[in-house]
């Protein structure tokens, strides 16, 4: 008995000491959410955050770090090897490759994040309401998403490119049309499990309208998985943009994007003898997507303690 009593008092003393130190400002209270701290202790996620922020900052501050205009042709200095003058060399038209990659990041990331956000807005808006309401509308939307998702995505994307034509805006619209299904299904599933919660029944009993219940009160509880989904679909859309531009069917070739830079490698002569034309672009795409995937996986682990392995 005596021993346990002693132990408790010792533990209490320790707590008192910690509280005292916090009061005097010697150590800081743990701030931020538990999920955020968990994310920061995940080494891969931190590496992802660093990779992504470096590339993102470079793209945002492109004019400050590039000496050359990415669109300026200089046929006299074409196909230069990497050197001090041109960090990564010049391409077949004499454009500086470093500048093309940095400026290309703006477009590629815009397409990736933009499409992920717009498809999330569409998917969440539909999924939250129909998931809560159920009924005929829910059934129709579910079948519609099944049809859209049955198409191999790249085939549906290319089909829409054929109909709507190429271009930056069209690409984002097409990615949204083909990509809302996944996040819609996920939001709907979340809403189905929240629907039977007592607070939802209470709100219904108060006579609140369905829109307010679905969007204002239920949706915030489903936000974790939605953020994870947006992150991972950003990576996916950047890959799609790269693949389409590589095929010459994405963003028009006169705009620099990462995919358009690698496009040149379709010509076997450039692929074989002028590796610096496409290898740096390929590395940046892969690094960025890898970084985003690291962050996405880290977020998933920290947002959902059930899903670990």
């Amino acid at each position, binding site marked *: 008995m005596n021993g346990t009593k002693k132990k408790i008092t010792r533990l209490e003393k320790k707590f008192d000491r910690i509280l005292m130190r916090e009061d005097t400002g010697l150590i800081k209270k743990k701030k931020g959410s538990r999920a955020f701290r968990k994310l920061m202790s995940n080494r*891969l996620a931190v590496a992802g955050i660093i990779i992504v922020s470096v590339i993102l900052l470079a793209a945002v501050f492109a004019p400050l770090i590039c000496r050359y205009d990415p669109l300026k042709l200089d046929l006299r200095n074409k196909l230069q090897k990497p050197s001090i003058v041109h960090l990564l060399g010049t391409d077949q038209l004499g454009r500086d490759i470093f500048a093309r990659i940095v400026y290309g990041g703006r477009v590629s990331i815009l397409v990736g994040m933009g499409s992920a956000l717009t498809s999330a807005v569409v998917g969440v808006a539909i999924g939250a309401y129909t998931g809560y309401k159920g009924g005929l509308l829910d059934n129709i939307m579910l*079948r519609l998403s*099944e*049809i859209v*998702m*049955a*198409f*191999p*995505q*790249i*085939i*549906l994307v*290319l*089909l829409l*490119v*054929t*109909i709507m034509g190429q271009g930056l805006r069209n690409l984002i619209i097409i990615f949204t049309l083909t990509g809302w299904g996944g996040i819609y299904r996920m939001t709907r599933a979340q809403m189905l499990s929240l629907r039977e919660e007592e607070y939802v029944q209470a709100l219904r009993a108060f006579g609140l309208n369905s829109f307010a219940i679905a969007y204002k009160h239920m949706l915030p509880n489903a936000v974790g998985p939605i953020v994870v989904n947006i992150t991972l679909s950003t*990576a996916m859309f950047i*890959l799609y943009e*790269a*693949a389409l531009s*590589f*095929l*010459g*069917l994405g963003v028009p070739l006169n705009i620099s994007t990462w995919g358009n830079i*690698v496009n040149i*490698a379709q010509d*076997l002569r450039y*692929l*074989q003898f002028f*590796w610096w034309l*496409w290898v740096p672009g*390929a590395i940046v*795409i*892969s690094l960025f*997507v*890898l970084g985003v*995937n*690291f962050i996405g*996986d880290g977020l998933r682990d920290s947002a959902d303690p059930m899903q670990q*392995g």
Partner: protein
Amino acid sequence: MLTYTLRRLLILIPMLLFLSFLIYLGLELTPGDAVSYMISPERYATMDPAELEAVREALGLSDPFLIRYVKWLGGVIKGDFGYSLQSGVPIKDIVFDRLPATLELSAGAILISTIFGIFFGTISALKRGSIGDNALTLAGMLGVSVPRFIFGLLAILLFTFHLKWLPVGGRLRPGYEGFMDRLPHLIMPTLVLSSTLIAGVMRYSRASMLDAMNRDFMKTARSKGLPEWRVNFVHGLRVSLIPVIVLIAFRLPILLGGTVIIEQVFQWPGIGNEFIGAVRSRNYPIVMMIAFFTTFAVLFVSFLIDLFTALLDPRVKLD
């Protein structure tokens, strides 16, 4: 089981009808004279306007939209898929001409990704937390992050130009016909197509194996005095495989999508290559019909998987 099959069929058929309706809508809305892909081009070229008008009437192009759709659908069911806009070849011939190449590539990729994915995933689970496990997990992340066409380009650079082991692309050199002559051409596209699939399968089978390792029957097997390898590979692996095999079948859309790009990188004469060519030249009928068939295949296969899963696990039917 019979009622379950019928219920699944009742969902499948309206979806196929809706899909075909969307495809037909696309065909109608895209530019171009509908007559030009409904009759063979030799006839189209030799006809004067009055005759064309008569044909239009005979083909029912002045009928209301829904009736035209029903007629078109009837034709598709009978195997009349229309004609290519540029070459005038019946689309059916193009599809059947190109299909074997794509099937060869996909079958190879499924085989390789299944074997290697399950192997690496199981190893990873058995040695959980080791350096090897971490390295494999990282390699898996690379596998899903690096675009497949970049894998393809790097493979061409390495194996064709530097080591000079494998041909750069294509399926057959003229004059050679046997499978052994095709094999060198097949290796690179198949391996590259498998790369992303392996990463996915590895993830699933690792999770599934970890799940199986915690079950009670593993302890029973161990307490019977069975050697460790027998416990893991005969008792554990067998149970962990079922969900993995089902998931592999569900990845068919990813596989089909992958072939589109890989066939382009390696100039593999399959459906995907034809599809890209048609997209580039705005050959709408071909684009629509290939999209229709791939989606049809996906829907049909997932229907079969549903039945298969229900056979394996009786609880599914109760849903």
